[in-house]
């Protein structure tokens, strides 16, 4: 059965993901359509996030839908003590679909259980952000022409990075191979290794940013190594410059390699990489709009011919 809401990337099976990726391809070719004419989408941002909100609102606007909502909980009735349930029930009476970001973990799952209309989770605390994963998957699909049998090297904070964990889940349907590159303190958690083992997904772990990990990859997925994640600041000082990508490190990489990053970037990709045609993180961010168009239409049962 087709999912009713998008709360967690694991709510979507392989067929669901492929359906979204195909639709996103069509929206990228032509993002301006009349598909949402007469529809109202609510963007409830209990926690501010300008980038994500604008991406969703652009997606809706380009399909000629209307938007209601708020960009900050201070302007919503939750400051008067209204429960999330009541807010969702009320907005569900007005809008055809609810896009929400909330600082509490599990809020989107709960909203999807009480809402009369589909919910899209645009981030629930540090828990899930499935549209980010979907745009990552779309960017991989777009740049590689396939999802199957790709080698993905993921670099940086593999312990806390929720984008990384969801990406592993989302890719797991497509026979990937992973290289995990992280400092000792931020290594990939055991549970994701067990997840890979169970599905017979091969992976290698590196604590150095080895040329092997770069040169064998089809996708190099960079993430931030944040100072506040370290219990031992000496350790941070030791590793902070180890996981930085410089342009010359791409010299012997595969011709089809693309470098991705969920953004915002700080220092982990040196500016000299930006002009390399293998750098694809800004296009990746732009893909957020097309992917979100595909997700919104899919949940509203609006199909492209």
């Amino acid at each position, binding site marked *: 059965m087709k999912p009713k809401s998008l709360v*967690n990337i694991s709510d979507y099976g392989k067929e669901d993901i492929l359906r979204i990726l195909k639709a996103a391809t069509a929206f990228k070719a032509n993002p301006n359509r009349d598909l949402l004419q007469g529809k109202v989408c609510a963007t409830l941002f209990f926690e501010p996030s300008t980038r994500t909100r604008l991406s969703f609102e652009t997606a809706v606007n380009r399909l000629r839908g209307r938007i209601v909502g708020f960009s900050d909980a201070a302007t919503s009735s939750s400051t008067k003590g209204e*429960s*999330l*349930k009541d807010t969702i029930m009320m907005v569900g009476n007005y809008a055809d679909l609810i896009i929400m970001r*909330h*600082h*509490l*973990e*599990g*809020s989107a*799952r*709960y909203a999807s259980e009480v809402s009369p209309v589909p919910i899209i989770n645009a981030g*629930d*605390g*540090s*828990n*899930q952000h499935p549209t980010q994963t979907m745009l990552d998957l779309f960017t991989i699909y777009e740049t590689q022409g396939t999802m199957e049998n790709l080698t993905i090297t993921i670099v940086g904070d593999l312990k806390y990075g929720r984008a990384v964990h969801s990406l592993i889940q989302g890719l797991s349907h497509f026979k990937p191979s992973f290289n995990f590159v992280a400092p000792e303190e931020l290594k990939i958690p055991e549970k994701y290794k067990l997840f890979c083992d169970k599905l017979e997904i091969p992976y290698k772990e590196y604590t150095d940013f080895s040329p092997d990990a770069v040169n064998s990859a089809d996708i190099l997925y960079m993430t931030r190594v944040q100072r506040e994640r370290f219990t031992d600041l000496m350790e941070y000082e030791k590793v902070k410059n180890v996981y930085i990508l410089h342009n010359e490190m791409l010299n012997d990489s595969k011709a089809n390699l693309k470098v991705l990053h969920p953004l915002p970037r700080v220092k982990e990709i040196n500016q000299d990489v930006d002009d390399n045609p293998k750098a694809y993180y800004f296009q990746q961010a732009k893909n957020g709009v097309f992917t979100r168009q595909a997700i919104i239409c899919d949940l509203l049962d609006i199909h492209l011919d």
Partner: protein
Amino acid sequence: MGKELQVAALENGTAIDHIPTKELFNVVALLQLQRLDNRITIGNNLKSRKMGAKGIIKVSDKFFKEDEINRIALVAPNVNLNIIRDYEVIEKKKVTLPDEIIEIVKCNNPKCITNNEPMKTRFEVIDKENVVLQCHYCELKIKKEEIVLK
């Protein structure tokens, strides 16, 4: 051979035996025994050959439903249940954790929606043997020793 009864025999009802002594009152709470009008005998720190010391609960004229009684597997997975009619044990049961635990456990994540909204908690039991729960909402995993009852 004189056998000393530590707790009076039950005519009809349920006897829950081999409860770890430190979990006895948690079991009382999980079964909401304070709400019952039935005759209830609670014994704790009784001698046990198997456990050294144990707790026991006898409830007259009460036959718990599966999902009621299985809750106690959260804190006491090895208890014995004796269903008694006419002073005879007619059935012996073991408790087994259900697939899902609704309401009785608190999520340990202060940022979980269930701790901030008037709603029921819900956990999937992802490892019955070692008692590991996962919050249906925030996805936090909770091990047996971390379980806090609501």
